[in-house]
């Protein structure tokens, strides 16, 4: 009898245990239900008059087309892997003037900072692959991520890897994330043509590349006195590595409000200047190739056929510490209106301080369509090493005329329209259309720089 009671109890326990297991299985929702495919693309256009390749003046026209595909695959109930493959093809007037002497408007084919030449650097394609993996715990309160990335472009290679952990607690009202990312990048340096040629000719401006070129001084008189800054040499450290640690804290405040606080600590090390970017010193004489009668109008867009020979390439410290800190705050105003806000304060040890404010007001037009206008304000102080064209001093250790490191502020207005069908009613075979997102943004600095971008994202679900 006792044996039977014991067996009965064991059976009950066993059944309860197996039911618990079944129950667990039933209530464990998959992190990602099915395969998702995102097709993203953008067209970017910019205009400006402060090209850094030509020392802080010149044509900054640039067009970029970036198609990208992102495939997210559920490996199990808990694991998801994402493959992100993108290319970015651009045409840049500024980069084309790495060699301004190969196509222009006059007989010796010299261009000016204001006109694109047809050099190899005019067009390029950036190729990128990211692989992200995430694992969520059974209670979905712990998420572990890992990623690896690779990118190449004509003068640059990048290998990145990272990992992170997110913990949710307080009934998933609070979350804390810690992540790290390392990029091991390498320059394949391209130099301004005249500086490269100067080293090839071993400093003889009557031979090699310069043999059939006439160099003029500021007065338009022929001379062979030009040389780069004394001691000029090519870069010896081709690495540019980035190490970052990110901390994120997010909290649900009320049924309609949540916010996140973040701080990153970023350290960059290696050759942080761009070897293609020229600089000109105010305390050294100026020398030109091209049409000497255009020297007096060099800084004007009327100049089509004379080019100022570089004094040096930009040089910047080999380390940089960056600390961005800020928050996001989202408020669900009502069923039709949400406020999304973002603020970031940024500090680095090159002297740049910046403030970024972004506001977005998504308006639900129907259960499928959302219109989201946005506004972004950005303001930065200049780097300690920045001076405009021909204002740098040769006695300085570090110098740049890259206007991306100058003092400026910018305003950006954007509009987006998103279509979402959570039931994916529109289907082609087993592929359902989940969403279409269109976005346009217009960006304008308080200097001579403006840009616009049109982006589109289409998401499909495979059943």
């Amino acid at each position, binding site marked *: 009898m006792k044996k039977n009671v014991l067996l009965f109890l064991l059976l009950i326990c066993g059944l309860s245990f197996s039911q618990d297991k079944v129950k667990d299985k039933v209530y464990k929702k998959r992190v990602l239900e099915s395969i998702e495919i995102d097709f993203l693309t*953008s067209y*970017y256009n910019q205009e400006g008059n402060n090209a850094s390749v030509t020392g802080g003046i010149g044509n900054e026209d640039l067009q*970029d087309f*970036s198609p990208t595909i992102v495939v997210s695959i559920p490996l199990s109930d808990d694991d998801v892997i994402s493959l992100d493959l993108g290319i970015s093809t*651009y045409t840049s007037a500024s*980069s084309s003037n790495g060699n301004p002497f190969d196509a222009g408007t006059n007989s010796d084919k010299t261009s000016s900072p204001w006109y694109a030449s047809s050099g190899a650097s005019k067009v*390029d394609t950036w190729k990128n692959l990211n692989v992200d993996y995430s694992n969520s715990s059974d209670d979905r309160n712990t998420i572990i991520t890992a990623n690896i*990335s690779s990118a190449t*472009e004509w003068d*640059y290679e*990048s290998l*990145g890897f990272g990992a992170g952990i997110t913990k949710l607690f*307080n*009934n*998933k*009202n*609070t979350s804390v994330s810690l992540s790290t990312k390392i*990029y091991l*990048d390498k*320059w394949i340096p391209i130099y301004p043509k005249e500086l490269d040629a100067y080293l090839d000719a071993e400093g003889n401006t009557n031979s090699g590349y310069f043999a059939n070129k006439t160099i003029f001084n500021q007065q338009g008189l022929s001379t062979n006195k030009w040389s780069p800054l004394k001691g000029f040499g090519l870069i010896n450290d081709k690495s*540019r590595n980035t190490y*970052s640690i990110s901390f994120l804290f*997010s*909290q*649900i*405040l009320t*049924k309609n409000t*949540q916010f*996140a*606080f*973040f*701080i*990153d600590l*970023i350290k960059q090390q290696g050759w942080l200047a*761009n070897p*293609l970017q020229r600089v000109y010193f105010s305390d050294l004489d100026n020398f030109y190739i091209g049409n000497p009668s255009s020297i007096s109008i060099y800084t004007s867009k009327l100049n089509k056929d004379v080019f100022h020979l570089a004094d040096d390439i930009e040089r910047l410290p080999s380390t940089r510490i*960056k600390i*961005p*800190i*800020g928050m996001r705050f*989202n408020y*669900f105003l009502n069923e039709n209106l949400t406020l*999304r806000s973002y603020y*970031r*304060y*940024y500090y*680095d040890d090159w002297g740049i301080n*910046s403030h970024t404010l972004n506001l977005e007001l*998504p308006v639900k037009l129907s259960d499928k369509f*959302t219109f989201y206008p946005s506004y972004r304000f950005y303001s*930065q102080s200049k780097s300690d090493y920045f001076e405009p064209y021909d204002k740098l001093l040769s006695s300085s250790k570090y110098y740049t005329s890259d206007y*991306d490191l100058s003092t400026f502020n*910018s305003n950006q207005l954007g509009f*987006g329209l998103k279509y979402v069908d959570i039931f994916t009613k529109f289907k082609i075979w087993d592929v359902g259309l989940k969403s279409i*997102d269109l*976005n346009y943004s217009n*960006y304008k600095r308080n200097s001579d720089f403006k840009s616009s*971008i049109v*982006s589109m*994202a289409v998401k499909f679900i495979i059943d």
Partner: protein
Amino acid sequence: MKKFNQVKNLLLFFVLVNSSVSCASIKEYEKVNINDPDMELSQRQICRFETNFQLYREGSSGGNGGKVGGGCGCN
């Protein structure tokens, strides 16, 4: 040093705000509005392209979930 103190004060401010609010607890069934896709505490996926250009065209980077390295922005 002054700039470092600014960062320190800002950090202290956020720590204080976080400590004062972290006790809030909203039940799962009360999170209908919080779970709305527009309430996500991250930037929209479609904004990745403009974030990349901002990274190259401005002196600042980081703090937005976007990349902090992995490209030269030479163009």
